[in-house]
């Protein structure tokens, strides 16, 4: 049974940063990432700013070209496909961006924003497109008279619904959701998250959900990958990650979240210092500079993935909970 939709192998993305007076350097945005996304799952990538989670999402869709590695979509290697051959896959994979204020064309009507994909991929006549736009608007909780308005007439939550409708209208299989609720207020975020869960069931979708918010990850995901400085440090089923975090960084992230409950005090296991630069990532384990449990060997030797249980793996010399 082949249940895998996307497989990413040894994926790397280095950005060249041109020096003006100094020499040019590479930013190691994504550095040797392997992962597998199963059909009809919500796979979350969580990390702090600069961890490479957004770049990873873009490289998987080939919106940014990888430096090295392979992306396999439904059994076919799409890494080297030409833009022309990619069109067939573009129809299957869509993206929703973080900021609904910048991702919608301000001078286009909602019906044109949403219908553009259909016009490109399906070459449908105008009235058929309008019919489909009407349908999809209802599906995302807007109504048909919204078709003839401009994006500025909508609130943040409504705009994000428009962006979701735009992604859905060509009936994709896979959607990258890049911080889809981070720009929204909590009362609106809840509605959008629920909508995403409903749509996934209805349209049989697979999501790659990128976020920095662990509470949202816990709410929505099936599978979780934790990223730190361009690398995945832990990956596993959601319940395993949240109940038995094995990487000190995952554990630190979980204990850093302030609980919205005055009875539950935050634990004091907070990583020291700040995230190092991705231009010169630390040798050995990249987290060793901030890790509370770092030992000598962590400074020199890069850890390999260690299998904690089932499909829960961790990149650490001294995983937590292992006697």
């Amino acid at each position, binding site marked *: 049974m082949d249940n895998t939709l996307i497989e990413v192998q040894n994926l790397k993305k280095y950005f060249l940063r041109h020096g003006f007076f100094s020499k040019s350097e590479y930013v190691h945005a994504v550095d040797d990432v392997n992962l597998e996304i199963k059909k009809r799952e919500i796979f979350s990538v969580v990390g702090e700013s600069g961890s490479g989670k957004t770049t990873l999402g873009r490289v998987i869709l080939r919106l940014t070209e990888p430096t090295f590695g392979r992306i396999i979509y439904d059994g076919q290697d799409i890494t080297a496909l030409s833009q022309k051959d990619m069109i067939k896959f573009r129809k299957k994979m869509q993206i929703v961006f973080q900021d609904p204020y910048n991702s919608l064309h301000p001078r286009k009507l909602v019906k044109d924003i949403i219908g553009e994909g259909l016009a490109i991929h399906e070459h449908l006549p105008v009235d058929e497109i309008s019919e489909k736009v009407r349908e999809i608007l209802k599906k995302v909780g807007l109504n048909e008279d919204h078709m003839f308005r401009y994006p500025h007439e909508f609130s943040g939550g409504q705009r994000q619904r428009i962006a979701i409708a735009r992604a859905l209208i060509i009936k994709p299989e896979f959607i990258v959701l890049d911080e889809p609720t981070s720009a929204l207020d909590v009362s609106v975020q809840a509605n959008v998250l629920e909508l995403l869960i409903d749509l996934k069931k209805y349209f049989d979708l697979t999501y790659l959900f990128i976020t920095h918010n662990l509470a949202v990850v816990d709410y929505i995901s099936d599978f979780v990958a934790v990223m730190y400085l361009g690398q995945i440090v832990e990956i596993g089923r959601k319940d395993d990650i949240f109940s038995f975090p094995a990487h000190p960084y995952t554990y630190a992230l979980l204990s*850093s979240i302030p609980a919205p409950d005055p009875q539950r005090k935050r634990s004091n296991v907070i990583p020291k210092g*700040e995230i190092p630069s991705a231009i010169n990532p630390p040798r050995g384990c990249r987290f060793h500079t901030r890790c509370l449990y770092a030992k000598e060997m962590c400074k020199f030797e890069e850890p390999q993935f260690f299998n904690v249980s089932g499909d829960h793996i961790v990149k650490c010399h001294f995983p937590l909970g292992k006697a």
Partner: protein
Amino acid sequence: MNDVLLEVKNLRVVFHTYRGIVQALDDVSFTIHRNERVGIIGETGCGKSVTSLAIMRLIEPPGEIVNGEIIFEGKDLVKLNENSLNTIRGKEISMIFQEPLSSLNPVMKVGFQIGESISKVKNISIKASQKFVRDALKAVDLDPERVVNLYPSELSGGMAQRVMISMALSTNPKLMIADEPTSALDVTIQAQIMNLLDELVSKMKNTVILITHDLGVAAQFCDKILIMYAGTIVEFAETKELFENPLHPYTKGLLKAIPKVGNKNKIVGIPGSVPDLVNPPRGCRFHPRCPFAMEICKIEKPTLKTESQDHLVSCHLYR
């Protein structure tokens, strides 16, 4: 009672814009006692930042304080002139902002900037203030020898916020206002900064107003929480009481809308969105989104009333 530090009475702030008059704060009243840590919570556009700016008297045209009093230690800040205000700002009341890097002057070294504020307050030269600068930086766990000679662009977000905190607390103000101090920071850095603030404020016994949209941050730090919606106060209570026994439908809605780690309950959003404050709803400003709205809510504005001891709520459901 003489342990009242700040009393805001019937504060009304508007902004004159080309679209019309934005009614940013509508009849806001609350009292803060010495050594309290009060969190002001609300979503975008609820008026939490405007409240803090009004207390500092930093509302500038097109904004205007049209009505109300802000009584700080017996003096009405609304009536003071610029000169008298400058003896209070930075010295008695200080403030830190969300974007630490845009609050610092990019072309001056950190040591000079902190020294400048200390020298104003202590009435000494900037050179003489450098000793205090070093102490202030040490207090926020930064290495003074290194940091005094850095420019703001050489600081990370977390370091810059530490610099802001050192500057704000260097004069040991009676009241510190922290406006979303950690919202621009990553969660591990946020935890570091909130722990640091907690430690410093406990030691120096400052009164704090923490403005945030994050109920988690407030729950961990504040003694009391004030919930704002669309320019009005809807609820004010002790933190524990507010989380255990929320009264206002908006507060209840907010608490149900936050996803929590380890909590499997379904989250429920609040339908609709925040109203436009040029044309706010009549009556209770929350009524178009409220599941319990009654006829009276559309007509009559509720007032902030004491429902049980130290628990204030502004809602027609309680009378």
